[in-house]
């Protein structure tokens, strides 16, 4: 099935780059529709499903710029068990390529019936989507995720991943077992979020957010389920994020020490030059891997 046959819905809430990114999307596919300002991921996706006239629909997160080659895809959709297809998004701060910020193709029926985030009935669906077996990820990047248009946007993106990447199937694990229990892919992603980014605009906010998310989830009594509530996150940002850059960097370093002692996570502080070097090396390694394994 050709990707172009499906409706496309742009999901925005309060992202500072949403207008610019929506205009970019419309210049590539003028029929892209938009859902804006709906509180709660579950509700926003249901509104998108409502808007879509096709049985399946594509969602584009507001921080995304889509590669037009995506619209050339012809998808084998013969497996009726699959309800969500997703493609990797490339984070422009830290170079990570995975489902976060990626493009998704949803079964409308599935979205209408799912109960996640604010409507979750089970513990593991409280902070993320719960796809179980009906989910297929393609390890191909078709969009860049620009999460750093403002300090808050970058911090929130980092914080949310700092929380989510330490969970096992959406549930907290004993802090001492974190490295053992959590899927190594997620530990790897957490490492990248928590260390790389100082070279990019607002990148240190993403690093701080990731470390604070990890710390608050695993080393304090903070209710990690609140991560789904953007209003609470806005208030939290005002409370716990310093305004000066030097204080910010000191806090990142302090959290690095704490996370090492409490959770065994060894995240060094990489200044701008080190961060850029690591970022470039990471991208180069991914590219090299693709030449070896033809991914």
């Amino acid at each position, binding site marked *: 099935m050709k990707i*172009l*046959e499906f409706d496309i819905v742009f999901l925005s809430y309060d992202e500072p780059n949403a207008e610019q990114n929506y205009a970019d999307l419309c210049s*590539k*596919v*003028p*029929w892209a529709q938009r859902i804006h300002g709906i509180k709660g991921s579950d509700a926003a996706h249901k509104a998108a499903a409502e808007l879509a006239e096709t049985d399946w629909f594509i969602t584009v997160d507001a921080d995304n710029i889509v590669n*037009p080659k995506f*619209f*050339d895809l012809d998808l084998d959709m013969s497996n009726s068990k699959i309800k969500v297809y997703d493609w990797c998004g490339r984070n422009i701060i830290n170079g990570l390529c995975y489902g976060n910020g990626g493009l998704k193709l949803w079964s409308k029926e599935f979205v209408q019936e799912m109960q996640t985030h604010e409507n979750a009935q089970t513990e593991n669906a409280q902070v993320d989507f719960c796809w179980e077996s009906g989910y297929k990820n393609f390890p191909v990047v078709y969009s860049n995720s620009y999460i750093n248009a403002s300090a808050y946007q970058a911090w929130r993106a980092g914080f949310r991943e700092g929380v989510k990447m330490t969970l096992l199937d959406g549930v907290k694990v004993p802090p001492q077992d974190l490295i053992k229990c959590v899927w190594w892919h997620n530990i790897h992603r957490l490492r990248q979020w928590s260390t790389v980014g100082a070279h990019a605009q607002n990148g240190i906010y993403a690093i701080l957010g990731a470390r604070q998310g990890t710390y608050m989830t695993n080393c304090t009594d903070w209710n990690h389920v609140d991560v789904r509530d953007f209003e609470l996150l806005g208030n939290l940002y005002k409370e716990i994020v310093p305004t000066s850059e030097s204080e910010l960097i000191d806090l990142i370093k302090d959290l690095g020490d704490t996370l090492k002692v409490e959770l065994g996570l060894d995240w060094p502080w990489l200044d701008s030059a080190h961060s850029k070097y690591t970022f470039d090396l990471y991208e180069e390694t991914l590219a090299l891997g693709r030449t070896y394994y033809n991914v």
Partner: protein
Amino acid sequence: MYDIFYVGSEDDNWINLKNKYPNSLIVDPNTDIYQLKKKSFTKMFWVIWNDVVLTDNFNLNEYRATKWDEHFVHIFKNTEYYDGICLIPKNITISDQEFKTRCFQDKKEINIIVSSPTIYDKFCIESYDDYLKALDNTTTEMFWALWPEIEITDESVFDVYFSHHDKYNRSENHAWQHKFRKDEVTFGGLHLMCKNKPVSKKEIDFRFLINKKEHNEIVSKHRIYDIVFISYDEPNADANYKILQQRFPKAKRIHGVKGIHQAHIDAAKLCDTEMFWVVDGDSELLPSFDFSHAVNRYDLDLVHIYQSINPINGLVYGYGGVKLLPTKLTIDMNINAADMTTSISSKIKVMKEISNITAYNTDPFNTWKSAFRECAKLASKVIDRQKDDETDERLQTWLSKGHNKKFGEYAIRGARAGMEFVLSNKSDISLINNFDWLKEQFEIHEKH
């Protein structure tokens, strides 16, 4: 005389060839060079492709290859390129690839124009179904897609031909620049579609191909939507229509239809464009207004309302302004809603441009009636998405300004009567669209 093979189906080109050369034979387009050689009984044979048209001044039966050229494929000029008719020696080795691509290793290019390329088929395409039909019915490997909303400004574009050797361009969809609005050029106009590269429904619906080769020549412009002048009994209607027609001779007219909704439905039925302009009978169009606005595909369900100048109280807003309406939604509108424009679509766009003066102050009754109707609407706040403060301010202006203007007193009294009517009898607002009832009301009010 050599054998003549026509590679194609029994189309007009074949019939013409057969009439001129009764000995010619037709072969299936999939026939390969080896089969063709077997069929031939002469030492060379002509191959006439179905995408070329033979010129009249060349006689295939008179042409003889020289002795020393009998081992070369002769390829003749097809207007501009050497990709047309071939004279092929039977006893040389040619791969089928060479034959199909018309790129021969051992060839002699003959600088005689013996054919011209077949002009690509043209199809008027409004919907995806039309496009699918064009794909099925085209006799050329590429075809022109002409959307009904475009007007070709440079006919020479239809001479475009991509050589048979130019595989890239022959396999691509092409778009030319299109003058969409005054200062806006897009690629949503003329397209040359490749039969072998189908596009999706959304691409056709939005006139926007994701993958295309763009050509920077402007060859089309957006067609002006149909204009309909709607009059009932306005004393200045004939004069206003005449002025409109002088500038836009194709402007149509609906006159004397009872009921504002029905008049607009009838107007929409006169039109064959997807949007249409409505000019009210009392409108004096401003010279600067030229109906050139074109609507993006995703805005085709929008009611556009232009600003108009009120000659009595100086208000400038959508009252009496020119409207650009979606044709189909107008035909299907809810005729029971009091405000006609908002009942056509839930999406309204108020345009910044001023289109006209609403010269409703032509006589006492028409002035009174117009003010009554508008102020009843304002007072009842019946207009969707109206803002209370803005509406109240407008109502106050209607009620208080313009005493010294022509029939200004009638406008103010009509405004007051309209407002009072709503305050006393809110449930029957639809009466404001009944002109007989309005006449009675005028007579009742103005007698006192």
